């Protein structure tokens, strides 16, 4: 029986999903070896089991789902969307085997939270987690920040014509080099350079604040991984508050801000083009919104006399706001302190910061500074049009790796993505209200999952309804992939069962 073209397309998508999974399975060897070195043999067996299971699934798909065709744009997009879902299901295995989760759904929630660099967690008894499992948690968030497809492209997936589709499908559209594979490799090179610098800085800081050298290194590595990838996971349940250190907070602040910048900006600065840092529409937009929202948050906090002095206001108020704006999710306060102490105005500033997020083509989530900047420029352009004669031609320029002219296409693209973010944000907020949470708390948590932030007001716990967990998983996935791959995957699956061919 001849298969229809649609099913042949599925074969291509599953083949590349298998390839990505096969490469991804080798990540399990890092926590497996870490566990062996730490003398944790039970977790080591779990990670070897997970490695074997993921490799078996991946290699089976790669070996048996094939027809020799090269992937096109649509295949790349659908593969990106589906790979993230399959990766979520298989990566939850070590979590589930650890016994620190109440259900497999909770384990999948944490995987999606890690991969999308959100940072919300449903783990039980985090303070007694093995070194291997902590390595896995932070590795997932580090890899997720750069992108699992970017990893596969950098390592061994040739991709062919669909290579750019894979790349764009993962929420990145900036080419550092003409070749997508070279771009993927460059992203990993940049990340590894910062990994060494950041880990060393936090290692030294860890020893200075009283951690033993071994613990300081592991905590430094893990915190850095979550920091750079704007992930927000931490090895202890108190998050960054555990360290009670202004030095540690200052270092994490520097790296999460740097991590929220566009990889193309990093490449430009590393090549010596430092002017891009101050001219780029994204850094200008980030600086402006950070200043405005900081003032708003501080106004609210000072009005309610939440913090006794300026130092406390910076270490608590500004740190939380910057963590929200860069979509990191590191916290130096308890989730319930947001609800009980911060007041509506400061919470509004944090919610807005979470939705705006960091830069495009970075590890950060949210609308992205580029889109906010483009929409702001479009408003300026339209205002000028209103004020000038109807015959006047108003040209609006913006700087984004060179001076560009603002066109309808960019404005439409930015507005559509922002609109879709708002739709899924409203959807998650409504789900939170339906689950019985107060409006402000439901909105706060919805902004956190949609923007892949990870700050919590106390809603996200293992006891929330399964439906709400599924909504949050969907929002984290859709927000991270910036909708294109999600829409492509949905369209692809629909086309398999519908009459319309791709």
């Amino acid at each position, binding site marked *: 029986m001849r298969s229809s073209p649609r099913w042949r397309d599925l074969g291509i998508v599953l083949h590349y999903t298998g390839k990505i999974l096969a490469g991804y399975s080798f990540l399990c060897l890092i926590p497996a070896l870490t566990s062996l070195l730490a003398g944790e043999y039970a977790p080591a067996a779990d990670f070897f089991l997970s490695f074997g299971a993921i490799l078996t699934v991946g290699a089976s798909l790669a070996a048996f789902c094939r027809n020799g065709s090269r992937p096109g744009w649509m295949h790349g997009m659908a593969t990106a969307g589906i790979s993230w879902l399959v990766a979520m299901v298989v990566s939850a295995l070590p979590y589930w085997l650890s016994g620190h989760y109440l259900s497999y759904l909770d384990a999948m929630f944490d995987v999606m939270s890690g991969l999308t660099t959100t940072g919300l967690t449903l783990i039980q008894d985090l*303070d*007694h987690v093995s070194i291997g499992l902590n390595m896995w948690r932070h590795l997932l968030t580090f890899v997720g920040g750069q992108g699992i497809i970017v990893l596969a492209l950098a390592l061994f997936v040739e991709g062919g014509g669909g290579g750019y589709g894979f790349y764009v499908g993962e929420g990145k559209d900036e080419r550092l080099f003409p070749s997508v594979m070279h771009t993927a490799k460059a992203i990993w090179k940049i990340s590894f350079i910062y990994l060494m610098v950041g880990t060393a800085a936090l290692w030294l800081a860890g020893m200075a604040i009283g951690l033993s050298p071994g613990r300081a290194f592991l905590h430094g590595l893990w915190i850095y991984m979550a920091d750079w990838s704007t992930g927000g996971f931490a090895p202890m349940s108190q998050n960054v508050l555990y360290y009670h250190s202004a030095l540690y907070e200052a270092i994490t602040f520097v790296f999460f801000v740097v991590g929220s910048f566009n990889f193309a900006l990093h490449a430009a600065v590393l090549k010596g083009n430092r002017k891009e840092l101050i001219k780029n529409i994204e850094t200008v937009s980030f600086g402006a919104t950070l200043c405005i929202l900081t003032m708003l948050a501080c106004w609210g906090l000072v009005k309610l006399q939440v913090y*006794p002095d300026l*130092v406390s206001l910076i*270490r608590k108020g500004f740190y939380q706001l910057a963590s929200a704006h860069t979509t990191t999710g590191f916290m130096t306060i308890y989730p319930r*302190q947001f609800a*009980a102490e911060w007041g509506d105005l400061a919470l509004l500033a944090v919610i807005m910061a979470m939705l705006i997020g960091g830069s495009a083509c970075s590890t950060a989530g949210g609308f992205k500074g580029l889109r906010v900047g483009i929409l702001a420029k479009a408003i300026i352009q339209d205002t000028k049009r209103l004020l000038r004669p109807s015959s006047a031609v108003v040209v609006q320029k913006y700087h984004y790796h060179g001076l560009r002219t603002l066109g309808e296409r960019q404005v439409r693209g930015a507005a559509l993505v922002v609109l879709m973010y708002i739709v899924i944000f409203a959807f998650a907020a409504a789900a939170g209200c339906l689950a019985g949470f107060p409006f402000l708390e439901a909105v706060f948590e919805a902004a956190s999952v949609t923007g892949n932030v990870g700050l919590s007001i106390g809603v996200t716990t293992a006891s929330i309804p399964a439906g709400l967990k599924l909504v949050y998983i969907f929002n984290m996935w859709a927000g991270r992939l910036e909708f294109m791959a999600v829409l492509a995957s949905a369209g692809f699956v629909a086309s398999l069962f519908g009459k319309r061919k791709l």
Partner: protein
Amino acid sequence: MKKDTSLRSLILILLALAMALVPTAADAGTDFFAAVQAVHLSDIVEKASAYDGARVAIEGEIIGDVMARGDHSWINILDSGTAVGVWAEKDRLPEIAYLGNYGAVGDRVYITGIMHRACPEHGGDLDIHAETIELVKNGMPISHPLDLTRLGAAIAFSLSGILLAILWRKRERREKIS
């Protein structure tokens, strides 16, 4: 005469006690004679404003690390899923045998101290400045035995995965040549 001497002795003892207690109370920056409230850590976090500046008594497991900072140390105490930082003079810390982590249940301690919702000394941290720390119960190591079924499954899956990967790569190479 004897009665006068006893009265004088009593007054002297009371004065000495008061002199010893006043500086401690001043250090704590609070009413020393305020009652100690035994509370759960989750309540301290949930109702931080209500306990701000109060003398509290908590009990929990020491987790993670003892982070020395000069003549003080930070320890973090875990009780029913909530952990809170405790700032303590090094001399007041008891001999700690186990810190809570994957390999051990940490020592259980009873702490009295002043709770701060936003500590001005520590950059707004929610913390407790310890006045007394007593060891309640020694911790113990936790064993995590290797599950042989899982080990067997790990070997089986790893072998099947590697064999399938070899098969896939061979097929791919053959297709490239043809």
